[in-house]
């Protein structure tokens, strides 16, 4: 069978079994095993077990249970509720204000954390119920968490950027610096989208009725709710920037801060810890088993010769440099619908980067486009990590269809952001030029 047909069958099988409702982990793992059997032989199954062992040893994944645990504690201790009550009192008059506030918190979280999954689960736990309670449209709310939850890989520190630099030889420091302004651009565009949408359709993000917006003294008292979350942000960010801890270790300081906050709220109890641990276990287990299977899936595709396919594709490109850059992004976009970011990087970058450099483009700038594209990939159906992580925490009343639909406008906004960075490369390369 030709590689093109094999590719269609491979991803076709993924989509078919996903639609039939088999859990993602078994779809990814099962499709890998079946295709490995026919293209390589049963000996290749060793790859599945051995990739699993590799993921178990990945230190950066330790941040996931810690950030999730932090979120569960903050949720159970009422810190999150106070924070959103405060936001509502202050932003109550602004339609969609809570969603915009949520995107802002996502950006702060993005600076505290180098990976995507932890932020999605954290914000899904803390922010989603608060927005739904206040009659926000569920798709608006789900989408803003999906989009904001991916900021972690664009705003430094970022594990994906470090992997990009390992594969391409680009400077990590320049990439980190280059991610800052595009990260802010995304924040502005997404907030702007929410603001405009809610202005036109007030029922999507209803404002607080004027008589409930509180007096100035109530507002000032409510500000106390910011103190504890701020303390945690200072502890985590401060420890990273101050050279106290690596981004992964800093997550442990976040947990310490959350437990302290719970104590201040007089909610620290054995029962609370027990419940928070159990929910953390469910989510972390779900996330990491998906990662296990996703690694096997992209390894299987690479074992089938994926890179040759990409190579052929590139050699057949007509048109000039800009057409090539755009086509690369289109290829990455479609791959990101069904593959995990690391797999996409390993398959495409060794082929794309030499072409990008030969055409005289800045690899740092291309890296930022690539990473925004990965961020989009985290939330494009059928398989995006953020979608499934969110599915793991939402109440049963929210279906995958809601989550899938919720991302559509946000994907459009992020493609717009990518186009802006494409047309105005300075947004990405100005800051690294100043710093390095």
């Amino acid at each position, binding site marked *: 069978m030709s590689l093109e047909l094999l590719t269609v069958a491979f991803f076709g099988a993924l989509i078919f079994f996903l639609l039939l409702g088999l859990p993602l982990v078994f779809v990814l793992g099962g499709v890998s095993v079946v295709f490995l059997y026919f293209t390589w032989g049963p000996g290749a199954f060793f790859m599945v077990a051995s990739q699993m062992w590799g993921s178990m040893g990945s230190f950066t994944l330790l941040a996931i249970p810690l950030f999730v645990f932090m979120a569960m504690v903050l949720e159970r201790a009422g810190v999150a509720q106070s924070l959103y009550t405060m936001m509502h009192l202050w932003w109550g008059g602004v339609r969609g204000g809570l969603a915009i506030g949520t995107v802002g918190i996502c950006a702060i979280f993005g600076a505290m954390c180098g990976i995507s999954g932890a932020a999605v689960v954290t914000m899904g736990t803390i922010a989603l119920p608060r927005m739904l309670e206040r009659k926000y449209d569920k798709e608006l709310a789900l989408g803003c968490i999906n989009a904001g939850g991916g900021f972690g890989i664009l705003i430094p520190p970022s594990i994906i950027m470090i992997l990009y630099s*390992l594969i391409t030889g680009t400077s990590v420091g320049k990439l980190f610096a280059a991610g800052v302004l595009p990260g802010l651009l995304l924040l502005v565009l997404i907030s702007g989208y929410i603001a405009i949408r809610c202005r036109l359709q007030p029922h999507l993000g209803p404002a607080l009725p004027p008589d409930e917006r509180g007096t100035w003294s109530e507002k000032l008292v409510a500000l106390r709710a910011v103190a504890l979350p701020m303390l945690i942000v200072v502890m985590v960010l401060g420890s990273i920037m101050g050279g106290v801890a*690596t981004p992964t270790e800093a997550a442990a300081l976040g947990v310490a801060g959350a437990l302290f906050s719970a104590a201040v709220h007089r909610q620290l109890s054995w029962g609370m810890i027990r419940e928070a641990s159990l929910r953390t276990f469910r989510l972390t287990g779900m996330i990491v088993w998906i990662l296990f299977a996703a690694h096997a899936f992209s390894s299987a595709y690479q074992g089938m010769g994926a890179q040759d396919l990409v190579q052929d594709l590139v050699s057949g490109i007509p048109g000039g440099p800009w057409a090539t850059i755009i086509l690369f992004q289109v290829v990455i976009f479609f791959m990101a619908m069904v593959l995990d970011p690391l797999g996409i990087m390993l398959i495409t970058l060794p082929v794309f980067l030499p072409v990008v450099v030969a055409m005289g483009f800045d690899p740092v700038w291309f890296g930022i486009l690539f990473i925004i594209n990965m961020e989009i990939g985290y939330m494009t159906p059928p398989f995006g990590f953020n979608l499934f992580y969110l599915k793991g925490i939402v109440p049963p009343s929210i279906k995958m269809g809601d989550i899938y639909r919720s991302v559509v406008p946000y994907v459009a906004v992020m493609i717009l952001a990518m186009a802006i960075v494409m047309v105005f490369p300075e947004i990405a390369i100005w800051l690294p030029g100043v710093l390095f």
Partner: protein
Amino acid sequence: QDTVRWRVQSHWPNASSSFSDSLERLKTTLETRTDGRFVLQLHEAGALFPAREIFSAVSRGVIEMGTISPAYIRDRVSVAGIASGLPFAFRNTWEAAYFHKNLGFEEMIRAEVAEHGVFYATDKVYPTEMVVKSPIESLADFESLKIRSSGALQEFLTEAGAAATYLPGPELYPALATGVVDGAHWGAVQGAKSMGLYEVAKYHVHPALNIAGTDAFVISQDALDALPEDLRDILLNALEEQFWFRTNEYTYKEQIALAAAKAEQGVQVTRLPDEVAQHLAAAATAAWEKEAEKSEMAAEALEKLKSFLADLGHIER
């Protein structure tokens, strides 16, 4: 005639100079000399197997060939600890090359690795060197250092009094940038450059922590035996040439990379003060003896090494 295709899993990421200079070079050599009858399909680090699983995968015959560091097989091959580098043993790269090839050390590794159904060929010998954020001017400076290290060197640096800590590759750059650690080693100059370490640590430390055959090819013996005789000869000859070619080329590229790092990134080369160098040399001999305890063959290899170093006048016997 049929084309032979081998799957090769590398432990080098794509951006590592060795991925192209060593692996792609071998691929091209083989394709040229066999008129395209012998094709290596290269996979960069992590694509099919995690680095530390490559040896098992080759040993099981799941893939025909891989590249590894002998440090990954220290628990299976008793001389691998010596192969991956005893601290402060050789002073020049040629000495390590001579010890491997002319004094029969590589044959000792091969004999032990063969028990796992694997053929072993050293890619090159080269130094491992530290980069630090501020120069080491005294023993007290050294002992207050937080160094990112790994494996045997981490043990050695800890024994020698520094605060050696392990961080995985992706955590290294941010940790060094913010000062979680003050220094690190990742290969020598080219390695440090590929990880961006010179952006945040400007002092390159001489002498080397070790000089060793830190990169190697591993080939499934079954796959090797199954090759037509002419292909097998071409492969084995190419590997033998590769060692000398790459060792020499790597030495050259290190020097070029260092010159560029000095000129473009303001890197300075510092030498360890005598008191630190002597302190480390003393600590090193204790580390050597530990390796000798692993097996009779390891003891024999160390004996061979010590008499070689004594002949060179580096140590007293």
